[in-house]
């Protein structure tokens, strides 16, 4: 008996990916994870552009992680030009990152994963079959978007985030209003967690030992900043990222992939929870316990749960950050703020944890502040190798199932990684495939 499974342009992920599995007489002949997404060449596009435009351009690498890309880009530029930002701006940027984390995770868990667990094709039928649940997810999602709007001036492709700080910051009143919304969100989040708890049994019980890589920080759950840490080896400063990412081009498939201590590694919410579990906020830990998620978890499907846990963490930590800003007294800044910046030649790396994992931007500027070289390593590319190896390990375990079941399980696996394939700085199609 032979089965060929082809899922073209897998749905409910951001970007395009194809699954190609050929099973012949119970053995896996081929198992491929391919990316046909059109390449966009951002690293070349930014060469020749000015330091004050790079964050604007590289934000467009990915609409879903645009805040993360902007922040990684700003951090790289700021490192290269020796720009320091204020403590207040740092907190506001952390809030911006939380907003994206919440927005992205909620979209993923609520709109993209939930339908799988409820065995429907999309969130649209859920809107009529489970209106209350869908409304709750929408409400949370809206709060996250309002938060992005408030911090970034837009829900996608931020405007207020600029080298050296912010062009405009929220008022103390606006932050306080945001805080009460976040506090209101807590019960809704609990409701969503309960809903998913009831369905979590549908997540395949699959394990494959792998390496996890994430930023880490001794004082907090690292998202905006930290050292690169591996679950296999130790940690290192972010500027040494190349020693971790080790990109290579895969001949049979598509993208620049990455490997470190093993054949592949995983980044993203699960990697972060595995590495930084102890720094999670109290309620986030409770949520993790509710699902039995504890480090080190080697089931990639649990990434969905890790995202839920992180959403709770982001809500709680945001409230904490707003409290701190309030306690310190929010310092107003002039309208149309534009920090004074002295341009000089230099290189810098910015590493940020974005919803899908660790992200690096690395730029070199000449003395006029013109970019002469850029390298961006995006989370999804780092995960491709791991997805592929997971598939290879998973297919033999489910080989007896029907073609459609195998197909669904493999799709769920890919979706669990929440791959944001449009981050296609490096992603290309291979000739003649």
């Amino acid at each position: 008996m032979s089965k060929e499974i082809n899922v073209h342009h897998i749905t409910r992920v951001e970007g395009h990916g194809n699954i190609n599995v050929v099973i012949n007489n119970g053995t896996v002949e081929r198992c491929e994870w391919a990316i046909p997404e059109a390449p966009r060449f951002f690293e070349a596009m930014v060469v020749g552009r000015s330091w004050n435009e790079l964050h604007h351009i590289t934000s467009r690498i990915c609409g879903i992680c645009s805040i993360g890309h902007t922040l990684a880009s700003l951090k790289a530029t700021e490192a290269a030009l020796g720009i320091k930002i204020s403590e207040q701006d740092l907190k506001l940027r952390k809030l911006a990152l939380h907003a994206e984390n919440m927005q992205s995770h909620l979209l993923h868990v609520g709109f993209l994963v939930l339908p799988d667990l409820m065995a429907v094709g999309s969130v649209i039928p859920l809107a009529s079959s489970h209106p209350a649940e869908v409304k709750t997810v929408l409400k949370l999602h809206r709060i996250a978007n309002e938060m992005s709007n408030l911090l970034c001036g837009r829900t996608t492709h931020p405007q207020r985030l600029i080298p050296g700080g912010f062009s405009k910051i929220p008022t103390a009143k606006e932050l306080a209003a945001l805080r009460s919304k976040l506090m209101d969100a807590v019960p809704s989040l609990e409701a969503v967690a309960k809903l998913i708890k009831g369905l979590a049994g549908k997540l395949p019980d699959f394990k494959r030992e792998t390496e996890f890589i994430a930023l880490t920080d001794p004082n907090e759950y690292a998202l905006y900043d930290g050292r690169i840490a591996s679950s296999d080896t130790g940690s290192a400063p972010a500027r040494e990222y190349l020693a971790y990412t080790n990109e290579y081009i895969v001949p049979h498939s598509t993208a620049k992939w990455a490997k470190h201590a093993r054949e592949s590694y995983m980044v993203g919410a699960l990697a972060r929870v595995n590495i930084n579990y102890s720094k999670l906020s109290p309620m986030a830990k409770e949520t993790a316990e509710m699902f039995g998620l504890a480090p080190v978890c080697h089931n990639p499907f649990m990434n969905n749960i890790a995202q839920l846990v992180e959403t709770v963490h982001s809500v709680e930590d945001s409230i904490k950050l707003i409290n701190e800003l309030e306690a310190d007294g929010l310092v107003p800044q002039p309208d149309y703020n534009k920090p004074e910046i002295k341009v000089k030649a230099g290189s810098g790396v910015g590493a940020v944890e974005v919803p899908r994992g660790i992200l690096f931007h690395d730029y070199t500027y000449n003395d006029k502040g013109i970019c002469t070289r850029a390298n961006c390593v995006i989370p999804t590319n780092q995960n491709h190798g791991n997805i592929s190896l997971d598939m290879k390990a998973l297919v033999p375990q489910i080989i007896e199932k029907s073609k459609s079941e195998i197909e669904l399980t493999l799709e769920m696996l890919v979706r669990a990684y929440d791959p944001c394939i449009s981050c296609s700085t490096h992603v290309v199609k291979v000739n003649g495939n």
Partner: protein
Amino acid sequence: MKPKVAFFDFAGCEGDQLQVANLEEDLLALLGQVEVVSFREVMKEHSDNYDIAFVEGSCTRLQDEDRLKQIRKNAKIVVALGSCAAIGGINSLRNYKDLDSVKKTVYGDQAKLFDSYAARPIDAVIPVDAYVYGCPIDRDDFLHVVKSLLLGKKPETPTYPVCVECKKNENVCAFERGQFCVGPVTRAGCNSCCVNEGTICWGCRGLVDNPNENSHKEVLIKYGLTVDDAIGKFRLYFGWQEAKR
């Protein structure tokens, strides 16, 4: 019968589709007016039977053209969603580069494996009925276009520049703040959102129909940009449009 709607993406960041997903409650209301039959980002089902196709992203490869033509064949109305699709957008930055060396920069000696040509808006390949400009699209502007189409109306698109909205919003002009802005030649419709947030207009909605580019370049230079920088300002989003003019 509700019109059937489908979403497609080409070379882009999917930020525009995200803006659609971000309509929140309005999205539910919209679902009362249209039937979404294909939206790969959020649904598994797909159908080739649709009335309105929203296409995001630029055409960057020969093989994209076939897919675009198929969409054109299936749809009664094709809408370019976002600047990548409508004007070539940020992707056209790379059109100023030698593509071979671009590929080398990114892929080194494996570069020859990958095919790609100058990034272009979809109307360089197929006829387009309506445009939602912006990078990303503005949600209200998107709704305006959708409502117009549902009412059988040609969506009105401003033929005036961003400055109009910027003045109405009472911003301090970028030039008065020592910054440089391409709002005077950029099509309005975003409510000058970037300037409202304290920055500048980068030009994401593309050139107005009849821009006075020479005069605006003179302005940029008068206020202190070098000729090269002034040209660079125009290249950020206007690449394809300028090449065509």
